[in-house]
């Protein structure tokens, strides 16, 4: 078994560095889908987080509680919900989105959004109300003042984006259910790992797993290194 593990790992590395087209295709799908999802979700979610931190309206705590609950929603449940919505007989069936990359993007936006809202909400909460007032009194219109506040909270916002990206690029439930794991189209890293392992072929799984681990390391090292410059004052 030990020999076997070494052998498979060696094979995995060989797959990676020989630029095995199938393998890199899968990695490409993962990044394309997850980066698109993050790009779509970040700004609106940050705005919602900002409004939750700034405005005092009835039901504000309820909204916050709901986003917190959604943040913890199992990915398969999100997948199931979207499956029902997007399937032929569902309300959005006419768009024929099920088992496409756009469907995966929708799923990952749905997964990333609550996390981004909650984390950006606490990022903005940590910013002093004086920051907003100072910006406004020095002549910033609301839009510019929001940008100023985002700049003040940039490290915490970056942490939110990294956390959300980490969640969606490694989730398997939602992608499997609404992506369908179609080779060359909707098969991404986590669904490929699940499939290969179930077939008893570990090399590709290990190779893809290594990519995910490396990515996690890289993202967090980047985060820590930029944060180092934004020490507590």
């Amino acid at each position, binding site marked *: 078994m030990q020999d076997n593990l070494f052998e498979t790992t060696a094979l995995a590395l060989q797959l990676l560095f020989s630029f095995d087209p199938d393998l890199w295709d899968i990695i490409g799908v993962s990044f394309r889908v997850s980066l698109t999802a993050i790009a779509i979700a970040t700004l609106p979610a940050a705005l919602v987080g900002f409004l939750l931190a700034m405005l005092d309206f009835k039901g504000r705590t309820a909204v916050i509680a709901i986003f917190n609950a959604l943040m913890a929603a199992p990915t398969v449940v999100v997948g199931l919900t979207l499956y029902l919505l997007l399937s032929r007989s569902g309300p959005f069936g006419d768009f024929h989105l099920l088992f496409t990359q756009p469907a995966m993007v929708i799923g990952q936006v749905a997964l990333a959004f609550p996390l981004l809202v909650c984390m950006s909400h606490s990022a903005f909460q940590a910013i002093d109300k004086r920051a907003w007032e100072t910006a406004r*009194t*020095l*002549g910033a219109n609301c839009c510019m003042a929001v940008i*100023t506040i985002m700049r003040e909270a940039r490290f915490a916002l970056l942490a939110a984006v990294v956390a959300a990206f980490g969640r969606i690029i490694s989730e398997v439930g939602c992608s499997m259910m609404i992506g369908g794991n179609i080779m060359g189209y909707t098969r991404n890293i986590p669904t490929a790992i699940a499939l290969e392992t179930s077939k008893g072929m570990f090399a590709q799984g290990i190779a893809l797993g290594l990519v995910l681990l490396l990515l996690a390391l890289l993202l967090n090292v980047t985060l820590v290194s930029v944060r180092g410059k934004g020490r507590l004052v």
Partner: protein
Amino acid sequence: MNLELNATNLIKRFGARQLFSIDTLNLKEGDSIHLNGDNGVGKTTLMKVLAGLDKPCEGQVSVTPAKRKLWSSNLHPRVIYLHQSPYIFSGTVRENLAYGLKLRGSSRQQTNDAVDKALSWSRLEPLAHQQAYSLSGGEKQRLALARAWVLNPGLLFLDEPTANLDKKSVQNVAELVADLQNCGTAIMVSSHQSNPVTELCKQNMLLTGGQLKKNVVNEALYA
């Protein structure tokens, strides 16, 4: 050209509690007012309402001549409020000074020139490239004053500008405020005690029991 602020029938409540009710208040260029009152009577709240940062529950504040831009309806670009402990944006001292100028669409050259002047005005030149959060309390207060000064304000609200400052810093701040006054900026300084900055003021107002009493001379205060 001359800036004038008029407030009528201002009422501010928090929940059921009424903080103040003010029939009329007029501030114009050349005025200098010491706003006096005990802790918690609502000096900060009143100044924020006048500066457009907070909304009154009733009544209105109008500044003439009105500015052209319609969207920032309750804030006038020449009316500036300074917090008791100033908020300093992340970035260098220079970047803080340039903040308002950039918003007003000044060119790079104009901004740099104005920032240079502001640095020498507030004697912060040696600290120009320092991260602003690392300034001392007195330096931050000077930076906040200079950040407003570059924008050539017509009316400046100073909320307890000398709280937590030592004698020398208070003196420095007083000099800067005197200079602003000489440039024609109307100022309103809140403080619950007399100090070199409030001594620059020609008028005195007392906020007490929800009422604003104008031109009271508080003997105890100036004894």
